[in-house]
């Protein structure tokens, strides 16, 4: 299958890319690794007259430990996220998700920026961004702005990025010493995308939870931040009963649709189970037990 014709640009600096985006407006799109975009073009689900590749722009691929936050360049490959020592140490929740995303060959080409900007409700990294409370750096012709993860994912395939903006960096604020997270993904057979998945990030003070981030994948028009469950566990010890109640809130507050993956009720049951597993694992990683 061959994509419909398009003009292709591979600018060498970000300003040039922004100028091209502005020049061609709605007819232009950014190409990162192409692992979401190429299948859509090949199947002719979408047509894009002007493709602007970021691959020749230097300095968009990095994982930098800065004061207070981990800075990740938008063009950093999914495989580098998966295998990064610093990510495994500081945000195992992200290593979990990257390691289960697609397959190794797709991860060798796909980027974190593409996964987040694509905003497919089944993309795995948006939920992790929500759980951690990441900040996206969007660059436009007039400069950069910061967008919180909770404001970034708007709808299916729709983010807060303006048409003329490029996502250049993702910032993950460090949580305290007694923190940890976990991403649990439920898949069927060999299909890569999840029936449902949950991201949980926790911080403890002694036995009590003092901060939490919980978000879902695949069970709504976009990743859903589970604010009720997040608030519910704060100030509490994670007893079996507390975990059960939090998992019930996630199952109830999500918006699964009945489809070929399973019925709505089936997906809520999956959510109860994977939320329980994710909370327990995050708790363990945060040093609890």
């Amino acid at each position, binding site marked *: *299958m*061959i*994509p*419909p*014709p*398009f*003009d*292709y640009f*591979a600018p060498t600096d970000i300003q040039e890319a922004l100028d091209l985006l502005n020049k061609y407006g709605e007819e232009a799109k950014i*190409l990162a690794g*192409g*692992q979401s975009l*190429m*299948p859509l*073009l*090949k*199947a002719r689900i979408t047509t894009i007259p002007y*493709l602007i*590749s970021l*691959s020749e722009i230097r300095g968009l691929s990095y994982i930098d430990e800065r004061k207070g936050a981990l800075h990740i360049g938008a063009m950093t490959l999914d*495989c580098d996220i998966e295998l990064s020592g610093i990510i495994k140490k500081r945000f195992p929740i992200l290593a979990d998700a990257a390691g289960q995303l*697609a*397959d*190794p*060959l*797709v991860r*060798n*080409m796909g980027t974190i920026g593409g996964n987040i900007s694509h905003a497919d409700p089944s993309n795995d990294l948006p939920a992790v961004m929500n759980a951690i409370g990441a900040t996206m750096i969007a660059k436009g012709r007039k400069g950069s702005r910061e967008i919180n993860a909770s404001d970034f994912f708007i709808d299916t395939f729709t983010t807060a990025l303006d048409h003329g903006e490029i996502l250049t960096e993702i910032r993950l604020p460090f949580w305290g010493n007694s923190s940890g997270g976990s991403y649990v993904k439920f898949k069927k057979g*060999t299909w890569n995308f999840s029936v449902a998945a949950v991201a949980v990030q926790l911080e403890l003070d002694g036995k009590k939870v003092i901060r939490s981030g919980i978000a879902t994948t695949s069970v709504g028009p976009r990743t859903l931040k589970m604010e009720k469950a997040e608030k519910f566990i704060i100030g509490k010890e994670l007893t079996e009963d507390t975990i059960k109640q939090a998992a019930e809130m996630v199952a109830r507050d999500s918006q699964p649709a009945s489809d070929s993956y399973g019925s709505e009720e089936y997906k809520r049951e999956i959510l109860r189970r994977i939320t329980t597993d994710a909370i327990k694992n995050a708790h363990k990683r945060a040093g609890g037990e």
Partner: protein
Amino acid sequence: MEKKQVSIIVNGERKEAEIEPRMLLAHFLREVVGLTGTHIGCDTTNCGACTVILNGRAVKSCTVLAVQANNTKILTIEGLSRGQNKLHPVQKAFVDKQGFQCGYCTSGMILTSYWLLKNRKNVSEEEIRAAISGNLCRCTGYDSIVESIKEAQEMMKEEGDALEHEQEITVRSKR
């Protein structure tokens, strides 16, 4: 639609051509370069029959534009052997352990295995199975493929340093 000039090192040889930007790397390799060992199976990024090594990483060439591969180094199955009658250990292991039947998936399987064994030491069966999860085989049931990769790992270990210092891409002729 403006054509683009690309320059891609394929198995050590520089290949230059003016192509439509929408040409896929798999088609570039098969139709422009004339190397048909790279197969197209599903054409939907699922099967891995089209796997090639791009700058040291195994990728699905049906889902990469040839223009995206401009100025990169590609290794295809044709570039893996060390000359006539001298199979790469991964190839030899697939023959010895019957890692294929019809052979359609095989070039992709071998290249993914090569990438895995080049990049990781002492891989377990679990890691092998995870590494080939993007490569589908309709014939073997995978067990013989996993055995082949284990065997290849042993063979590559025995070769030791010789292999470590070998160039990622075998230069067969210069232009």
